């Protein structure tokens, strides 16, 4: 039984153990190998870390729900870019400029609606055609990115509004707006997944779709809700990020879908659906950002960062597989 308990602890707490390991390693490597002259684990650094994880993190939260439900969404990076463009460009429209600073909340609403709409399109196609979400959102990824380029060609879209920048850089207890939004999203979606009927049904559908249908659960509407949710979150991520920067390039948000999936998988969510948690994903997002920061801290360049993260992902999944093996009697396929 102790063996079993240990196994469960390893399985569910692995990501947090990994985060502690990272912290200790980079702290020690920085200090004793004299690779860096500043401490790694100071408060400012950690607060900054939360802010930097926010764009991918907010999307990863949505991706967790999508993957628990047994789907995947590859179009989030393109939705992120398109929502950002809608937000910044709309503020240049004459009637919006006439509104002064009141154009800010309106621009946010436009961006969020864009995200919801694009998610709705994905969800309806997956529901009504029955085509695999991987294929549908692969198409959507290309299509939505196409819209991004149609909007403004290769040119960046920008609009600088100092009030908006102030809001984006406001902080509570040292946490800036993007970090606060990230934390709020984690808490709310965690409640949705663990406490609501929709969350319960999403797990059931992802684990065993047939049994869920046999229990009278209508699968399609749940799919649609989750695609709208992730579209909304991708747009929210754009709102949180671009309100401060004020300028978006047509290539922004590329590969975000893969970073989000990486974080989700590191956090223990199964690709096949039915298992996963928002808290695990939160850990996965932090672990990746820590790794980026930490490797930078000890002087590694960006190419090395990707190589290391990729290797770690595979090692983690290998470990997970070993821990989840049923034993020698498992059917060989």
């Amino acid at each position, binding site marked *: 039984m102790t063996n079993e308990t240990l196994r469960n602890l390893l399985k569910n707490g692995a990501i947090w153990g990994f985060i502690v390991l990272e912290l200790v390693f980079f702290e020690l490597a920085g200090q004793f190998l004299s690779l860096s002259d500043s401490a790694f684990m100071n408060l400012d650094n950690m607060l900054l870390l939360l802010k930097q994880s926010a764009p991918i993190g907010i999307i990863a939260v949505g991706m967790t729900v999508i993957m628990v439900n047994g789907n995947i969404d590859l179009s989030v990076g393109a939705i992120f870019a398109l929502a950002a463009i809608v937000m910044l460009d709309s503020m240049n429209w004459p009637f919006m400029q006439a509104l002064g600073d009141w154009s800010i909340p309106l621009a946010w609403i436009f961006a969020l609606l864009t995200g919801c709409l694009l998610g709705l399109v994905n969800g309806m196609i997956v529901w009504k055609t029955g085509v695999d979400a991987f294929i549908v959102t692969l198409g959507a990824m290309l299509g939505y990115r196409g819209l991004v380029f149609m909007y403004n060609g290769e040119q960046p879209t920008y609009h600088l509004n100092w009030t908006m920048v102030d809001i984006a850089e406001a902080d509570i207890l040292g946490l800036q707006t993007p970090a606060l939004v990230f934390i709020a999203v984690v808490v709310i979606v965690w409640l949705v997944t663990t406490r609501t009927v929709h969350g319960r049904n999403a797990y059931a559908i992802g*684990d065993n779709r047939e049994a869920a*249908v*046999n229990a009278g659960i209508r699968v399609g509407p749940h799919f649609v809700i989750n695609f709208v949710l992730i579209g909304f979150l991708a747009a929210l991520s754009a709102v949180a990020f671009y309100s401060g920067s004020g300028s978006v390039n047509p290539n922004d948000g590329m590969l975000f879908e893969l970073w989000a999936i990486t974080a989700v998988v590191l956090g223990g969510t199964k690709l096949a659906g039915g298992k996963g948690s928002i808290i695990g994903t939160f850990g996965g997002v932090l672990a990746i950002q820590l790794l980026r920061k930490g490797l930078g801290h000890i002087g590694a360049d960006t190419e090395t960062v990707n190589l290391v993260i990729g290797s770690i992902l595979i090692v983690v999944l290998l470990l997970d597989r070993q821990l989840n093996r049923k034993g020698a009697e498992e*059917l060989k396929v």
Partner: protein
Amino acid sequence: MTATTPALRLEGIVKTFPGVRALDDVSFDVQPGEVHALMGENGAGKSTLMKVLGGVYQPDAGRILVGEKPVVMASPLEAKANGIIFIHQELSLATELSVAENVFLGELPRKRFGRVDWDRLYTVTDEILKRLRVGFDARTRAGDLSIANQQMVEIARALTHEAKAVIFDEPTASLTDAEKVVLFDVIADLKAAGVGIIYISHRMEEIFKITDRITVLRDGQYRGTIATAETDEEAVTHLMIGRALDLSRNVSHHEIGDVALEVRGLSCGKLFQDVSFEVRRGEVVGFYGLVGAGRTEIAETLFGLRDPTSGTILLDGQEVRIHSPADAIARGISLVPEDRKGQGLVLGMNCRDNMTLPQVDDLKAGPFVAEGAEVAIFDQYRDRLDIRTPGWRQLAGNLSGGNQQKIVIGKWLSMHPSVLIVDEPTRGIDVGSKSEIHKLLRELAAQGYAVVVISSEMPEVLHVADRIVAMYQGRVVRTFTSEEVTEDNLIQAISGIGGQAAA
């Protein structure tokens, strides 16, 4: 026949799974040039035995001999290498590849540098196909063939090896009469070539037509081998059924109420045609027939998983249209499906959540699920159904089959349905839990539920049902009352012998 060396011999094979002794000291042999029938009810251990022979499972005790040589088979590939060839009920062809590539799958003839020797592949395959007298050639795409012809490809596969023993698992389940004739010819050819053949089927007619000896399994135990020529259907049936379990005929002591469910002339394409029956409150109606007779499909149609092509369904005298399980549930129809793990339970979810899955929407406190109410429901039905689990947090996948089935039944009872359809209520459940489930089904009827039980186990329907609907190839052959029914007339009805007159 024992004078020659058997093609295949099994000695004292034992295989246990947690909670179940699936094979208990099974021994028999198959002579070269013999067609040997293996019979037994579903759950008697045939498929486990076949998996042991096929190298999928390792026996806990006993040994397998091919010719005089004891063999240990760690994988299906090794079974094949030892000359044991399977013709599976479920076809496993790569449908996008040609027939020839399928026949030699994994063993394509090669030329130098690993190139495929296509010429040889096609000529050799065409030679084999000629022996089988089939109407297609080696270059045909496997997916374009009929089911019967796909089965021929499987057989062709068997012929590429030097087969010592060929095992046919319900080969005629999806064949037409004409196709069966071809199959029997092929079996006769194999027999003439000195191959030992194990033939698994429920169809008495076929067994008596083509086999030489019959071995019967029951509850994982060997029940005897008899020469086909010296026995009859009744004797074989007797070996297959008749068990220690209490399966005495049920007698209803309670009032039978009004008609809860009535079905008139219901059809669904080729799956079943013109099915009519009624189920009253307080009554258990059993559906008995061979696999593929259309029983499960009727249940699926009543539950909204399939749309009927014609016919009407009436609930309490009112005509209803049911398009989805949600519709069915809202109207008080519940289905305990055939495949508990695949269709009935979310295995990665805990017992409580599984039990309340269809009704969580009604158990809300504000925006959230009222978990206290859920626990109350779980506790109530755990006690009522005597579900043995350490607590509601236990994952459904960790329970025994009997307790899993009770969770599924509890899930529906807590919704207070009027009609409860139970498909194969005790499949894969150990003998002790079986009688508990039987008792439970009887009690539910006594409490006024209209219960439909679909079963492939004759003792089960005889024991539990007030009336039995016998089905054969998608049609209702006859409806028996518990006074009329005998094992013989029931088996005849579902095998398509003589029973048509009574339709």
